[in-house]
């Protein structure tokens, strides 16, 4: 049983004459522990795919099984619960809540899980230590650099220990140095056994993944294992 099993998925905007097929019959399976890069140009449908995989958006037709559970027809609240338990998001724009401290942001998914304060403190501190920001716990996003903010976002994604990390252009808004730091952390998460799905338009970054899935016009045009990782 695959961790992610997507079968013949369509996402169609404006059905009718001017319809746009953002996802045009995509089938994809991702196994536990894989590091997959989904690559495509802007408008290729890669972001739609990422939103669909992350259960942030629903598809027009097709089936989606996560851990063998059919998630394609779930209610809004059921999807919230699955996202909370199974998926950690890393967004291009960090998406931190500006009014909360780094720690407050990292604790959010734990709060929504209904965890007690002491447990939250423990997990959020661990996560911030993992990204090397234990000294900035009480800083707000506005008091941190972009690289630091993205590391807070990573800490938030991993705090609840979800099996899947979904990263959408995680280095897109960062300078190359911070980008490297972030990629290092992502590799580390992979080594720890997490499944990483990384969306990017950058071939260089895609090369770092084990497997590359190339999207164009809503279709998968390539799906191959990286030579470098095969060598490993």
């Amino acid at each position, binding site marked *: 049983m695959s961790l992610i099993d997507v079968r013949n998925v369509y996402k169609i905007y404006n059905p009718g004459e001017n319809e746009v097929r953002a996802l045009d019959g995509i089938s994809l399976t991702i196994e536990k522990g894989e590091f997959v890069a989904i690559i495509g140009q802007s408008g290729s449908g890669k972001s739609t795919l990422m939103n669909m995989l992350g259960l*942030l958006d629903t598809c027009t037709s097709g089936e989606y099984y996560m851990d063998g559970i059919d998630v394609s027809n779930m209610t809004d*609240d059921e999807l*919230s619960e699955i996202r909370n338990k199974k998926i950690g998001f890393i967004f291009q724009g960090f*998406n931190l809540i500006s009014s909360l401290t780094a720690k407050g942001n990292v604790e959010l*998914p734990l709060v929504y899980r209904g965890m007690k304060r002491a447990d939250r403190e423990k997990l959020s501190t661990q996560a911030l230590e993992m990204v090397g920001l234990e000294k900035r716990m009480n800083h707000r996003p506005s008091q941190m650099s972009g690289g630091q903010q993205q590391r807070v976002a990573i800490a938030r994604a991993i705090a609840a220990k979800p099996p899947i990390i979904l990263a959408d252009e995680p280095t897109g808004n960062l300078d190359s140095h911070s980008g490297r730091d972030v990629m290092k952390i992502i590799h580390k998460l992979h080594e720890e056994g997490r499944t990483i799905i990384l969306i990017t338009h950058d071939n260089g970054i895609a090369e770092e993944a084990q497997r590359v899935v190339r999207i164009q016009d809503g279709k998968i045009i390539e799906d191959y294992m990286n030579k470098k990782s095969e060598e490993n």
Partner: protein
Amino acid sequence: MSIWENIKIAVFSIRTNAMRSILTMLGIIIGVASVIAIITVGNGGKDFVVDLLSDMSSGAVSIQVGTSATAGELITKEDIQALRNIDTIQYVSPMDYKIGSAYTDEKTAMCFALAGNEDLAQVMNIKMRRGRFFTEEENNDASNVCVVTEIGALVMFNSLDCIGEYVNFQLNGQVVKMRIIGVTSSDLTASTSSSNSTVSMYGDMLSNPEFQDSPMGSGSSAMMAIVCPITVTDKLSNTNGYSMLYLTAKDQTQAAVVGNAAKNILYAKHGNFGSNIYSVVNMESFTEMVDKIINVFTTFVAGISAIALLVGGIGVMNIMLVSVTERTREIGIRKSLGAKTSTILFQFLTESVILCLIGGIIGFIAGVGMAAAVAAYAGIKIKIELSTIAIAVGFSSAVGIFFGIYPARKAAKMLPIDALRRD
């Protein structure tokens, strides 16, 4: 997500936009303050009036004879005796008053003389400060005794220690020399204001030719009041009967019924049924009526000021909608991290309720302050009831929920992808 977390988020968000929150609250503050001020002043005013009225009589009922009555229709001693024999009546006394002048060797003053039998003290709630009230024997014997008011004692004797002293009451050229047997703390002129207003009584006094002719009529404004047996005042004028009586019922709650029964007895004894010559004035029902009028008035004005609360509520709704729009992205983030529809709903609802509650509490304090200022000016005491606090808290939370539910639902229903896409 616990309520406590929600409250923390809400307070934080309110503090972050402090200026905006204060301006929004202002609507609620003004609304609640005016409602509370009106209710508080209304309650205080009501207590004041009701106290005043109940001070005047101890649940007494008065029966008055109409001005068109013939001599045969006036209340006689026999009528009073007949009423005394009725089980349900506790005290009954005829009531009469004379306005003349009082003098001692040293002083003169205009004098209001209230007269009745020994039950008068009970039916008119005359409270003794010193000495005693006159007895049945004294009334029967037409003894020349009287009770003076505190003011009367001070006017005539410069002291409350005047028991045993004598005072002369002069009317129509006749003089009765009365021995003072007691001093009352009651204001006798106010006691009769249920039937004759105090103003008109003093008016009577001032327009009395006897009084104007008397040496102290001009230049002296000294006034006093006494209570004496009705048999004494009878000696001063030829009376066929009295135009008023007061009675109290054994069972206070039955005062109105007993009053009507007494009225029917009078008709029966005088054989003038259907003439409507006797009328019952029940202080209890009068008090109730005043109470009702003030209640209606307070509710009405409070209702009008509640419009301010409504406007304030619309302000809250408006600002919450702005807040939801501004925080669309935050809602998207929260949802992507696992917040459920209900969590977001409660988050925004908590915020609007807290906004309104803070406004309600400030409004309550401001309202009580306003009421205290008005009360100090009007000379009444304000009373803060628990129900008033409940109204302030209840109303403001209700406004928060009512006007917060729409924006909160709007936030909660957002799809995470739509919310995240918006910048």
